[in-house]
C-alpha cells in the first residue's frame, strides 16, 4: 500500500508540473495532458523507471469507470440546467459517433489492405 502511495506521488508530481506549465505559458492544453507527456518523456529518457509508477498507474486506469460516475450522476441531477431538446442531441451525437467509428475503422482497414497488396 505504501509503495502504491509513493508511486502515486510521482504521478501527482507529473500532474502538478503539467498544471504549472499550462498556466505559466497559457497553453491551450490542460495540465493532465501535459503531465502525461512529461511522464512519457521521463520514461523514454530513462529518468523515470517503469517500476516506479506502474502499480499506481495500473490501478488508476483499471478503475477509470469509478471516476466517471460522479460527472454522469451530476449530469442526471442537473438535467434542469440543460435547455435543449434531447432527441435532437441524441440524433446528432449518435450519428457523428457512428461517423467517427466507421471513419477510423474503414480508413485503417483500407490502409492495411493496400499495404498488404503492395507487399505481395
Amino acid at each position, binding site marked *: 500500500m505504501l509503495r502504491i502511495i509513493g508511486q*502515486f506521488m510521482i504521478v*501527482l508530481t*507529473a*500532474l502538478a508540473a503539467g498544471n504549472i506549465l499550462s498556466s505559466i505559458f497559457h497553453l*491551450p*492544453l*490542460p*495540465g*493532465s*495532458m501535459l*503531465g*502525461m507527456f512529461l*511522464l512519457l518523456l521521463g*520514461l523514454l529518457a530513462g529518468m523515470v523507471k517503469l517500476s516506479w*509508477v506502474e502499480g*499506481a*498507474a*495500473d490501478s*488508476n*486506469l483499471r*478503475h*477509470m*469507470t*469509478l*471516476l*466517471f*460516475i*460522479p*460527472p*454522469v*450522476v*451530476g*449530469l*442526471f*441531477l442537473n438535467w434542469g*440546467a*440543460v435547455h*435543449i431538446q434531447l432527441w435532437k*442531441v*441524441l440524433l*446528432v*451525437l*449518435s*450519428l*457523428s*459517433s*457512428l*461517423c*467517427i*467509428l*466507421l*471513419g*477510423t*475503422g*474503414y*480508413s*485503417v*482497414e483500407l*490502409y*492495411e489492405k493496400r499495404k498488404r497488396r503492395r507487399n505481395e
Partner: protein
Amino acid sequence: MSITFGNTLLSIAATTSTYLFGLRIYRKSNHKPWLNPLYTVTLLLFLLLPFLHMDVKSYEKGSKIFSLLLQTGIVSLAIPIYKQFPLIKKNIKKITVGIVSGGMAGAVSSVAFAFLMGFKGEAVASLLPKTATLPVALSVSGSLGGTAPLTILFVLISALFSLIVGPHVLDGCNIRSKTARGLAMGISAQALGANRSFQWGEEEGAMGSVGMTTTAILVSVIIPMGMLLIAYL
C-alpha cells in the same frame, strides 16, 4: 468546515461502496456489457442520494476528489503508451491515417448535423470539442463560448453511445484490424473506450490510449488555432 468534511466523506463513501457493489455484480455476471458498473452505479446513486439528504451541489462538491483522480488517470496513460511505444512507432502511418480520418469525420459530421437540427452558437461551441476527453473538452469549450453542462452532456452521451454501440458496429462491419478497433474506440469513447479495448488485448488497448490522447491533443491545439485564424479574417 466540519459540514464540508462530512459531506466529502459521505460522497466518497456512497460513490465507492456502490461502485464496489456494482463491480461485484458485473464480475459475477461474467462481464455482461449492460451490467457495466457505469450504468448500475449511476442508477443506484441516483436513487440513493435523496435518502442521504444530498442535492446536486453538495454531491458535486463532495466528489471533487474523483475529478483529481480522473486527471491522474490521464497522466497514467503514459504507462500503456510507453509500454507499446515500439508498436506505435512501427505503425505511426496507420495510426495517423486512422486519427485524421476519424477526427475529420467526427468534426464535419457533428457540425453538419448540428446545423441541420438548428443548433445555435453556444450548443455548437460545446459540441465541437466533444471527441476530446472530458477535462480537455471542458477547457476548449470554455474558450469557444460553450457551456459546461452542455459540454459534459455531449462528451458523456457520445462516449456512452460509442461504448455500447461501438463493439457491435465494428463486428458488424467486419472491421478486424487490432489497430482499427482500438483507435476507433479510443477516439469515439475516450477513456471509457480505451478501457473497453483493453478487454480485447494489450495491443488494442494501447491503440485505444493513443487514439484518445492524440485526439485530445489535436482538439486542444487545432480548435483554438482555428478560432484565432477566424478572428484574424
